[in-house]
């Protein structure tokens, strides 16, 4: 965390008193979340199933199944709650999905290129030429052990759970977002895949990037060591601490933190 204090105070994700319900009914999910993740830091958000972790991830990315009834979310001092998902992506926000979506008929390479160029365009940058784009993808896929034939296939169709998660990290590496939200990225992965994915995430750690790692288990945090750990229970953050908090949770379970074990 050295050096972080000199950073401008607005360069962070700041969530204040966030209340969220499901748009179609009155089910309240988030009940007053307060959270700050400055650039350069990696925070872990842990909690039992049903505590609201994934809802927070979706709300950050702008899914319209949810309605914010109170509170605010700012990124680098700018209120993002009125922004469309693609505008948020252009502002540097990236959600790695817990369940990456299969898109039949869209070749992975086409998708990656469309996405990267859309974001570059929104940022006022020129589109990448085909050779430059291919070179860039090659470089990123190598590190993640993604085979070329996967890039020709429709996005995520017929991919294993581990392959889908690696695709998420590939997208993250290509788009170079400044706020990365990873929702249960370790779920469904064997230990080798956890290592590969973690290395991919760690490679992206840096002073210009904030990360929020959402996870149910402590395991992932052995590989991606967080600066801070927060415990979410029933729509509220009930405790925050250093990385040792994750180990404590692993031993005592969520019940010890006033959270109902799922």
């Amino acid at each position, binding site marked *: 965390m050295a050096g972080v204090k000199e950073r401008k105070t607005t360069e962070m994700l700041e969530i204040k008193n966030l209340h969220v319900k499901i748009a179609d009914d009155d089910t309240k999910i988030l009940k007053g979340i307060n959270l700050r993740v400055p650039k350069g830091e990696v925070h872990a958000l842990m909690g039992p199933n049903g505590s609201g972790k994934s809802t927070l991830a979706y709300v950050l*990315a*702008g*899914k*319209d199944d949810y309605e914010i009834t109170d509170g605010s979310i700012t990124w680098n001092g700018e209120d993002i709650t009125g922004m*469309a*998902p*693609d505008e*948020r*992506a*252009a502002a540097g926000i*990236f*959600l790695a*999905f817990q369940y*990456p*979506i299969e*898109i*039949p*008929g*869209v070749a992975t390479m086409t*998708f990656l290129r*469309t*996405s*990267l160029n*859309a*974001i570059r365009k*929104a940022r006022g940058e020129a589109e990448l030429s085909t050779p430059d784009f291919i070179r860039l993808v090659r470089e990123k896929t190598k590190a993640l052990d993604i085979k070329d034939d996967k890039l020709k296939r*429709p996005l995520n169709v017929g991919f294993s759970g581990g392959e889908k998660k690696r695709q998420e990290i590939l*997208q993250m590496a290509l*788009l170079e977002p400044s706020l990365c939200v990873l929702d249960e990225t370790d779920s469904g992965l064997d230990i080798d895949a956890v290592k590969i994915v973690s290395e991919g995430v760690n490679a992206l750690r840096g002073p210009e990037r904030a990360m929020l790692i959402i996870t149910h288990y402590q395991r992932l945090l052995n590989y991606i060591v967080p600066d801070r750990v927060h415990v979410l229970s029933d729509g509220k953050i009930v405790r925050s601490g250093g990385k040792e908090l994750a180990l404590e949770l692993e031993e005592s379970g969520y019940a010890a933190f006033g959270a109902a074990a799922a």
Partner: protein
Amino acid sequence: MIPEILKTRAEQGFADQFIAGKAGLPGAGNAWVEGLRDAAWKTYAATGLPHRRIEEWKYTDLRTLLRDAYPPAPALAEALNGDDIAQALGKDMAGIDCHLLVVVDGHFRAGLSDVSGLADRAKVHSLGDALGDPEDWLKSALEQTRSDTVLALNTALMTGGVVLRIEEDASIGKPVHIVHLFAAKDAASITTRNIIVIGAGAEVTLLESYVSLGSTPAQRNSVTDLRAGDGSRVQHVKFQNENLSSVHLTNWMTRLGADMTYNAFQFSIGASLARNQISVAFAGEGTSSHLSSAVMARGKQHNDTTVVIDHAVPGCESREFSKLVLDDAARGIIQCKVKVHRGAQKSDGYQMARGLLLSEGAEFYSKPELEIFADDVVCGHGSTSGQVDENLMFYLRSRGIPEAQARALLITAFVGEVLEKIANEDIRAAFMNMAETWLASEDE
């Protein structure tokens, strides 16, 4: 002379056309052809145009939808050149490297065609000429006994088309492209028939395009009779982009030999009213037929694809896969009947129809039918309809892709999945481009 069953102006109009015009039709003076036309005419006159109480025409009631019978298009009236053909086809289709056969307003035009590359692998004739003194094999191809009055009307009034015979074991790399062009200055009807005979062991890609030059309304009634020999490998593709004031009635009648593969595709974006009728009959064992279609329709376009697959012999496989993108108040119909005859054991049939509805006013009708009279068969069907998936939209948008672009990408992907069934890369790429163009013109 004209039976009282004929009720509507259009029905009467076609009847009058035959009476007034039969002496001038190709084959007039040949007793066999005249007999064929007279018999077909009687079949038509006895029942008139099909209507909704006939199950196969339930969704496409021609008695209601056809108000008038347009006069036959004048023969060889228009002076055209290759640029006109390219213009009507559009740049994507015109760019396909092919052996070109051109039929204008119902008449084969040798001068606009180029079959020099087919040399001794295939023979091409004008049907109009062949009717003057038809050989026995052609007679048997022209004799159809089914109770289909649109087919009967075609037999009575056909003016021309292509007769194509592909030699045994011939391998033809480039597609043989039959372009049916409507170019008449005034509203007109066109009645054509293609007779295609593919020799045993031959390999060929047939492409039929139905297009128009200009926006003059047309009524097209076209039949393609295809017989494929044992062991042949056939791709058969149709592209339909007639102008939006046209009526397009086509009927593919396909008969497949043994141990062969038939891979057919229809891509339909034009015409105000389109009826794509396809029948595939298995005449030999060990054959597979894969039939797919893509329809994109908007405004008040009506597109009906009606398929009958006839498993008359054992051990054949049939697949039908359809995708329809329907916007505004467009109406899309898929009817697919798979018949498995007694004794046609080990038949394997599956059909799937998917509709993507882009607006509340669009309608999709899917009617699968299975008639199975054998006990050792695998047959199934499926159908889905829905809107653009919001979860997919969110995923794409979360990756920075703006809403309109994300929607277009998903619709293209929906169509792309069925276009993948086309083996010929040039044709597939041309269709893909046209699907994208169609989407891009959505807001016009």
